Structures are given as structure tokens and as C-alpha cells.
């Protein structure tokens, strides 16, 4: 028996617990730290799916970049306001009903669907396959992504300009 189901179960527990903490914690800063745990756990899920490259990208960009930016934003905004941001949640019942309805709807499809194919053996190095696909089959979206980043860079510079 392999360790994979145990790893999956442990990661699922960590993921669901930390995700609940993200949306329920009062302290916004703690919320971001729980999100860091969720994103790192997701990298673990990617490792159980043999996608090492995606796990590395997840850790570098999400758990590294997004968390840093979010912490930075909270620190800056708290300094501007002068006191700590405590976030209260409103409409807990409405949120619970909406999220529960979406969950039941999706799960009814997922669980009724025929059992998918078993996991095929790893045909090739997935990282090499990603690199080849990006530069052949998906080269146009890849270039569009570069354009999007350029636009985002211009937007960030525009936002960050000094007051005149």
C-alpha cells in the first residue's frame, strides 16, 4: 500500500481547516497567514499529482509573491488608517446558503458522474512536456500573457505615481 492516500487525506484536512480559518478569522493579518498555509498545502496536493513544476510555481508565485503583497497592503493601509483593521463578517446566513447551494450543486454533478479512468502511468517528464507545449501548441496565449504583464506593469506604475 502506498503512502499517497494518507498524504492526500492529511493535506485535505490541512487545506479545508486553513481555508475555513481564512474566511472566519477576525484578524485580517492572521487571515493572510492562514491563506499562506492553504497555498502551501495546495503545492503539496500538486506534488501528489506528480506536477513538481506546478508545485514550484505555486510556492514561488502564490505563497511567495501573493502573501508578500497582501501583508504589504495590510501594513500600509493600517498605517494610513492609524489603527488595526478588524474585519467583521456580515450576512453569515446568506453566505452560508449561497456557498452551500453551490457546493451541493457541484457535488451532485461530481458524485453522479461515471467513475473516471484510473490514473495512467507517468508517460514522460511533465516539466519537459509543459515547456514543449508552451512553446509550440500554446505559443499565442504565452505571448498574450507577456502582453498582459506589460499592461499590468504600466498600470502598477500609473497607480504608484506620486501625487501632483
Amino acid at each position: 500500500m502506498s503512502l499517497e492516500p494518507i498524504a492526500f487525506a492529511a493535506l485535505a484536512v490541512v487545506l479545508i481547516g486553513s481555508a475555513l480559518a481564512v474566511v472566519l478569522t477576525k484578524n485580517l493579518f492572521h487571515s493572510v497567514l492562514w491563506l499562506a498555509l492553504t497555498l502551501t498545502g495546495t503545492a503539496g496536493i500538486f506534488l501528489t499529482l506528480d506536477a513538481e513544476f506546478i508545485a514550484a510555481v505555486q510556492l514561488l508565485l502564490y505563497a511567495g509573491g501573493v502573501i508578500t503583497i497582501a501583508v504589504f497592503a495590510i501594513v500600509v493601509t493600517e498605517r494610513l488608517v492609524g489603527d488595526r483593521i478588524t474585519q467583521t463578517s456580515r450576512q453569515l446566513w446568506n453566505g452560508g446558503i449561497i456557498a452551500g447551494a453551490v457546493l451541493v450543486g457541484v457535488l451532485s454533478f461530481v458524485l453522479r458522474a461515471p467513475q473516471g479512468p484510473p490514473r495512467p502511468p507517468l508517460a514522460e517528464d511533465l516539466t519537459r512536456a509543459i515547456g514543449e507545449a508552451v512553446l509550440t501548441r500554446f505559443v499565442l496565449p504565452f505571448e498574450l500573457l507577456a502582453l498582459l504583464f506589460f499592461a499590468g506593469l504600466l498600470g502598477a506604475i500609473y497607480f504608484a505615481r506620486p501625487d501632483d
Partner: protein
Amino acid sequence: MPASVSLQAYLVLAAVLFAIGLFGVVTRRTTIGILLGIELMLNSVNINLVAFARYHGDVAGLVFTVFTISITVAEVALGLALVILIFRVRRTAIADHLDLLRG
């Protein structure tokens, strides 16, 4: 316990995470809290994409995941820049207070 995890298990996990993120987006009042909920939802979609790619032996799902991660990072960076900018102008963290365009 089965010898290997089925595709359904990954889909159920992603659906649960998506619902939790949606709950956060609906219930949070601060703009940063709403952005964190959106992060959770996008993250769960990535789990779906990678799981489908692995179980169907098609690399396209992995490429899409790389694209969505990159786009999400750009989106969060600009979204939080907007939040800071709104803070400088309006001095508020609550999304309901941003009703400048209300008729």
C-alpha cells in the same frame, strides 16, 4: 483505504475549497478580505485543472494552470494596489463604503 486516490476525491476537495472561498467573498466586509476569498476560489480551480491533466494524460491542463497562476498574481498585485489607492483617497477599508457610483 484504496491503493490510490480517485479523480473524484480531488474534485470534491476542490469543490469544498471553492465553496469556502465563495463564502468568504460574500461575507467579508473589507476589500482585502474579499480578495483573499477570490484567491481561495482561484486556487481550488487550479487543483481541478492539475487533477484532470494528470488523470487524462494531457499536458494542456498543466499549461493552463501556469497561465492562471501567472494571471492571478498580476490580478492580485493590481487589486491590492487599487485597495491602497482607494485607502489614500477615501480612508476606508469597507467595500460597502465605496458607493461613489451609486445613482
